[in-house]
């Protein structure tokens, strides 16, 4: 199979997945805005974020038997892979629909344009298209671009689903070609040279998305932040009052609401809950074997440390990116671009750099892996750091901070609680998400982990090629449980410390 074929397969798949994800993301975003109760929003938030945080390796592992049955049917296998990819990445599109800058032309103006537009002439069509990309279609294109970049650069899932039936390849991608080639190539630079075309495609999509963003004039939808022309987001002095056509969709009268709910439930079942249940059943029988393999504790420790360091690094990068002054949006692009190229390209690039004699002190240390994970997480960190400012009111936060200086104990405690709720808790949860993503990342980890510092995911991912085994399932469940416990305990400790 050629590199060109891999690019075409990945391109076609990514375009379809991105298009569908943008459409479904739009529906789910409408559902989000339509929901008024807190518990329902929390349920939806968990259902949306779970597929993203569930490691791809777990999904591939859990469905290994199903995949084995589908191998003789290439179309079915490709559909299975694309469906899993779509369900895992749709939450990204939802995030973009909810958080991206609102279009320069509001829905009312767009509706008026539709009523009056004359598309019978070429000039009319051009005008209509120009109008469209300044209306809600622009947000859709942004959502599709984000999903495209992730789908196009996927390796973990592709590697688990990939096979060839004679001359017909299944779940083929340029990333598989690059992976094989970097093993066979005499030097890393030789392997890197071959990815110029995929990188060019990714950069074109990335730059296109950034160009769309610069069309922004309005308020950052849902974030409560406005964006100065070509500049950084600026917090409003008052909370944003939601209103208008977008925030009050009349979904109750149609089937859209239940259908969208049904999709979300099916997606979280298929990509998170069912894989976890399947593996857990096996794990119960494998738990007894775990004490014989006590080395996994070292691997877990390594994974946790890499995850924590990468999360801190990515938070720092996002902090820098979001502090850019007016007219320096390119800093955001600079921070986000490496991560949007995918973990494989990023890992190979980092590897090619640190193997140079000048980086002898860095080579075969955790620095390479942590640096790659930090850059890979940066776009997510930037997006989340923007989003956690929802509802933040500077005056309230400032008042709370003034209260902390109070001589009386009760107001001081109350102020600490307020500060935790408004500032500490959101930042902690952003850090937690970043930590979990880094903890479960397998591609860069495989390429860059230092000798003697294997992360758990690398060992587990390698074992997964043997398909299900009881002890392996137990290791997978343990690997899944560790970040849950760490984040849970961390949240509790920080909450107590912050309050006291």
């Amino acid at each position, binding site marked *: 199979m050629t590199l060109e074929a891999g690019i075409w397969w990945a391109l076609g798949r990514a375009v379809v997945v991105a298009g569908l994800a943008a459409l479904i993301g739009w529906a789910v975003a409408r559902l989000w805005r339509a929901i008024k109760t807190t518990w329902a929003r929390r349920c939806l938030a968990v259902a949306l974020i779970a597929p993203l945080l569930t490691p791809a390796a777990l999904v591939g592992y859990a469905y290994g038997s199903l995949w084995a049955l589908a*191998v003789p049917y290439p179309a079915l296998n490709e559909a299975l892979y694309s469906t899993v990819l779509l369900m895992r990445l749709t939450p990204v599109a939802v995030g973009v629909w909810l958080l991206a800058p609102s279009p320069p032309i509001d829905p009312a103006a767009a509706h008026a344009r539709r009523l009056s537009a004359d598309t019978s002439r070429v000039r009319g069509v051009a005008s209509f298209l120009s109008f469209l990309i300044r209306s809600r279609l622009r947000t859709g294109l942004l959502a599709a671009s984000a999903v495209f970049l992730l789908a196009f650069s996927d390796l973990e899932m592709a590697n688990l689903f990939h096979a060839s039936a004679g*001359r017909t390849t299944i779940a083929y991608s340029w990333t598989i070609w690059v992976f094989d080639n970097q093993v066979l190539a005499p030097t890393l630079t030789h392997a890197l040279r071959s990815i110029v075309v995929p990188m060019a495609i990714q950069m074109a999509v990335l730059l296109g998305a950034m160009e769309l963003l610069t069309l922004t004039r309005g308020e950052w939808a849902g974030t409560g932040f406005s964006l100065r022309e070509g500049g950084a987001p600026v917090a409003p002095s008052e909370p944003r009052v939601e209103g208008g056509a977008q925030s009050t969709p009349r979904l109750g009268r149609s089937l859209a609401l239940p259908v969208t709910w049904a999709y979300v439930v099916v997606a979280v079942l298929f990509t998170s809950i069912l894989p976890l249940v399947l593996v857990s059943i096996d794990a119960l029988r494998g738990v007894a074997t775990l004490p014989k*393999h006590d*080395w996994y504790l070292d691997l877990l420790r390594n994974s946790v440390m890499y995850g924590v*360091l990468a999360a801190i690094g990515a938070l720092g990068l996002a902090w820098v990116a979001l502090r850019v002054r007016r007219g320096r949006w390119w800093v955001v692009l600079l921070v986000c671009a490496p991560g949007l190229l995918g973990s494989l390209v990023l890992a190979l690039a980092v590897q090619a750099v640190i193997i140079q*004699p000048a980086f002898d002190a860095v080579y075969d240390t955790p620095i390479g892996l942590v640096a790659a994970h930090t850059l890979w997480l940066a776009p997510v960190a930037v997006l989340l750091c923007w989003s956690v400012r929802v509802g933040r009111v500077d005056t309230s936060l400032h008042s709370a901070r003034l209260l902390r200086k109070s001589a009386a104990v009760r107001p001081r405690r109350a102020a600490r609680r307020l500060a935790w709720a408004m500032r500490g808790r959101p930042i902690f949860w952003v850090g937690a998400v970043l930590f979990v993503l880094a903890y479960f990342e397998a591609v860069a980890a495989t390429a860059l982990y230092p000798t003697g*510092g294997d992360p758990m995911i690398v060992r587990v991912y390698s074992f997964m090629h043997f398909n299900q085994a009881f002890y392996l399932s137990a290791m997978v469940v343990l690997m899944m449980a560790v970040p849950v416990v760490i984040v849970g305990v961390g949240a509790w400790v920080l909450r107590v410390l912050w309050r006291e």
Partner: protein
Amino acid sequence: MHATMTLFNLRASACVCGLALFCALLTGCDNGGGGTSSSGDDDGPLVVYCAHDAVFSEKVLRDFEDETGIEVVPRFDTEASKSLGLVQLIMRERDRPRCDVFWNNEQLGMMQLQREGLLQPYKGEGFARMPDAYKDPDGYWCGFAARLRVWIVNTKAADKGIEADAAALWQRTQAGDLSRVAIAKPLFGTTRTHYTVFWDAWGAGKLKAWHGDWRDRGVTEVNGNGVVMNLVARGSCDYGLTDTDDFYVALDRKDPVAMAPFRLADGRVICIPNTVGIINGTKRLEKAKRLVEYLLSRKNEKNLAWSPSRQIPLGPIDVKELPQDVKDLYEWSKNPYPLSGLGDAADDCLDWLTPEYAR
């Protein structure tokens, strides 16, 4: 307010920096060098690159640690790029070697490292006990504990007339649809050795024609021998080519599988040993020699024979001490195709395969 914010940011930054430093200290790896011991060795742990499955080899290395007190830091290869990934890594690190001992799960990669001048000769007691067919005469590397290439057959396919009979299975592949026959991509691991044997035994022309014919008739190619085993065990394919250790994973799982050794036309089998070699320029030579001796020892070969991977001992051993499965393999392995002279064939074959799969 600005002062408060600045103070807050300073505190936050200090916390973050402190946490980062703490984590960096905790994450420090164990592969650094140390002082020098009385034997002249670096005091640091012995770095072992290991292409044999971690699930089997980890225990051997830990036992060695317990027995000798020498700390071992292993680096394992992934299933997908088995063995070749570590060979390439050693080649890329030629100017600043990190690895002290390379435990490969096949022979061709070791021969390549020898040609590149990256191995250091060592002939000890373990070397002496191994047959000439499985070691380099100058002591650059030595084989031990082998596997066989085998046909794995789903026993439920018996109603289609498919039985675990090597000659009959080969005959079946001569014509018709092969979509229910599985094989791993021949770029890596033991399937590469299998192709190299064909290259040597048949000649390039016949191998290329055979390979093209198999692909034209829809053979299922996957990412490793473990996946081949899985496809056959789950019934997605009726039979395939894999290694004995992968077959036993399925058998131990009580999957409906049987096997037969793959035989060339003259009846010879493809017996692929593990190999071990010391990396040129190691600073822990004495420790490296002790590990080599340990791996080549009768005790280790016997342990590997009793392990779930059922490795075949190559050195002299009392057959009665072996499990029944390995006794059968031991008998079959007595007529192997010689791999020691296949260095050029391996290079030529890989040169042909690389553009086939990674153009």
